[in-house]
């Protein structure tokens, strides 16, 4: 039963992705085609500059032939609907074409190579931050729920609201200004020192560079996690089975971690994964502040250099990751909460 549910959810996610990519292709069609045409013209000019022994007419004829060939290659000679469909298919098969400026670490200009380099770094930073945040947040949330209305609960709830509208990247700027330039205990950005150290030291070095962005993410995010955990746990604590567990004389810690947490786990996991997803989509500029060479930083570079192919590739990959995250979320949720698996009868 679960596998049927899972298959359905995954299929649905893929369908959603295809539709979204199609919509993006329609929206950005004009820009994409202008960029492709400019790239074709550039490569044609490159080809013809070497041809010294041909006269003007021959060169023009050659260029026209080559142009027609390339237009055919990129499906630019077809009606608009077909062009958009081709663009969609190319995007889904990760065939983003070449960038206009940006190069990968090895100097390649293939967009997928450039983007795929950055994905692990983004995931590394945000997953680590999320795990830490979750541990701290859930712990604090439980403490808050235990003494709801107490000083700890009230003060942390106010902290939640204070950071509610605070942009993460702004706090990042402040943190860099203070920790990296004023008291100079953390590096101001980057993935590792140049040149990177070898072996275990390399690992430590990355951790050291990750410390400041992670601290920033933690400071802003874990209040929210704590607040939501508190509300969820508080709701569960009022259930009858908790009261009966307490009445049976089960120790408070066991009630809290055994009974309450088991029931509260699905929504807490949902919330945590949703916050990770919103991290990836909502904090993409955050990386730019810390020069953390992930996808967010690449967005920044692509916009500054007006590199449309890279931007489109990034958008497609971010969307794919986001939808994949939503699907995984539902799968985990279905796994944790058996009622979901039945499905379709809601």
């Amino acid at each position, binding site marked *: 039963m679960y596998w049927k549910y899972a298959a359905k959810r995954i299929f649905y*996610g893929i369908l*959603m992705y295809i*539709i*979204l990519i199609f919509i*993006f292709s329609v*929206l*950005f069609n004009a*820009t994409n085609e202008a960029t492709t045409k400019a790239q074709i013209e550039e490569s044609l000019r490159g080809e013809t500059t070497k041809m010294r022994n041909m006269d003007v007419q021959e060169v023009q004829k050659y260029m026209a032939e080559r142009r027609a060939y390339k237009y055919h290659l990129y499906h630019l000679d077809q009606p608009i609907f077909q062009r958009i469909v081709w663009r969609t298919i190319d995007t889904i098969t990760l065939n983003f074409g070449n960038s206009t400026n940006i190069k990968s670490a090895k100097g390649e200009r293939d967009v997928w190579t450039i983007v795929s380099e950055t994905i692990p770094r983004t995931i590394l930073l945000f997953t680590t931050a999320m795990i830490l945040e979750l541990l701290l947040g859930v712990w604090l949330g439980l403490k808050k729920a235990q003494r709801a209305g107490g000083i700890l609960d009230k003060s942390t709830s*106010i902290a939640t*609201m*204070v*950071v*509610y*509208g*605070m*942009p993460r*990247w*702004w*706090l990042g*700027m*402040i943190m*860099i*200004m203070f920790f990296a*330039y*004023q008291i100079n205990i953390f590096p*101001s950005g980057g993935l590792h020192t140049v040149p990177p150290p070898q072996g275990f030291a390399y690992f430590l070095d990355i951790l050291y560079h990750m410390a400041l962005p992670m601290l920033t993410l933690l400071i802003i995010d874990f209040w929210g996690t704590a607040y939501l955990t508190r509300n969820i746990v508080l709701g569960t604590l009022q259930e009858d089975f908790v009261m009966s567990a307490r009445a049976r004389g089960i120790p408070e810690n066991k009630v809290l971690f055994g009974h309450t947490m088991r029931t509260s786990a699905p929504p807490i996991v949902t919330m945590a994964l949703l916050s990770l*997803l919103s991290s*990836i*989509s*909502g904090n*993409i*500029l955050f990386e*730019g*502040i810390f020069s953390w060479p992930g996808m967010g930083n690449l*967005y*920044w570079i692509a*916009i*500054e250099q*007006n590199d*449309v192919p890279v*931007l*489109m590739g*990034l*958008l497609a990959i*971010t*969307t794919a*990751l*986001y*939808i994949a995250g*939503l699907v995984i979320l539902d799968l985990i949720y279905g796994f944790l909460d058996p009622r979901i698996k039945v499905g379709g009868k809601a």
Partner: protein
Amino acid sequence: MKMKDLKFWLKDFWTEYKKVKFGIVGFVFLIIFLLLMIFEPYIVPFSKASSRWRDITYWDDNPSGAPPVWTNWFSSKKSPESEKITKYQSEVIEGDLKFVNSTFEYDYKYDKAPLDIIFHGRGTGNMIMIVKMERPDGETFDLVQMPIQTDGGNDIRITLDKDSGAAAYDFAQKFENEENLQYVDKTSVKPLDIYFAQAKSDMLNKIEPLKGIYKFTVTTILLDQESSYEDPYMVVSGRVSGILGTDNSKRDIWSGVVAGVKWALLIGLLTAVIAVGIGVVYGVISAYYGGFVDSIMQRIFELFASTPLLPVLIVMSAVFKPSIWTMILMMCAFFWTGPVKTVRSMALQIKEETYIEASKAVGASNARLIFKHMVPILVPYSFASMALYVPSAIVYEATISLIGLGDATIVTWGQILHDALKGGAVLTGLWWWVVPPGIMIALMGMTFAFIGFAMDKILQPKLRTR
């Protein structure tokens, strides 16, 4: 809802609202923001900041990258403040040539010299301008002497830093010892430092301030009858400036931050109201019709909900280069999904109420049922969620501006932060450029979070009891 009902409901709501402490705090902050917005022209020194933010000439008289005035309180060496001196003594000598003398007094009581002193006035025709200075120690000398030809009452701007030439060196020469004079290059002397320094040997090497009243006399010799010189004023370009200092491009940050209030409120409130409005109506319609319509509408909703919002907004801004209004529309196009799920589940319950059935039996139309009987019940909930959407709209706009894709015709906090980032404010430690706009975003977010959470607290038990 009739007017009387609304009034009653509001009164009821207010008595409940008053009980939530942080709700009151949020309300007070909101009032402060509104007051800042209304009285903007009266509380900022540069009232055209909003329209001429990117006009370099408008900010020309300010020092560049100067800290706020109140930093003086914490430093032992007092820096001169930027100020505009409009009080002057005027003296007109008629004759073959008309002389117009305007004398400004500047009370110098700081430990460092100002960066520049600038004289302004509206002039027409041909004239020769002479600026004289009388120091507290009695020394008097000419600083500037320049012919000016202008027409139509243009602004004449004379700065001591650029226009006074070698006057400072000549002045120092009188007192300085031979040895030092050999080493000091004529062009490397900073004129303002010398003008406000004690006249003595070694003054080029070790500058000590001479405090007291300085008199600057601007003498305008009008060369013919048609010429005129009016409305003179003097600007001291200090080392500290304004409530929040200035940025690299000499802009007054306080003026910019206050000018940003109205845009933040506009962006936040407009986006929240439109988006939540659409979301509520969408959710109700979806729940009301049910069946086929509902599943189609839910699929569309899911499509929007599974779009990564910020990346799409950023790419759209990069491709379409939107104005602020288009940006608000773009945000609305994605924000409406927020309340849909909750509203739909609430509307599903309301749909089963007997009074809906009763109106149906009487023959009320679908539109009447939806807009007269179902949507009004959800109004309290929508207000609470509107308040909670305001901060995210502001942050999204700020984020898009931060990357440099904002509307260049207005001033928003995000754009100030973008300039700060590009201008290396983080690197050079110009904290007064980075901290205030961010604090404002955070405060605005906090204000609406307080209001939203307070409303949630009041409205939830009423609405979500089953």
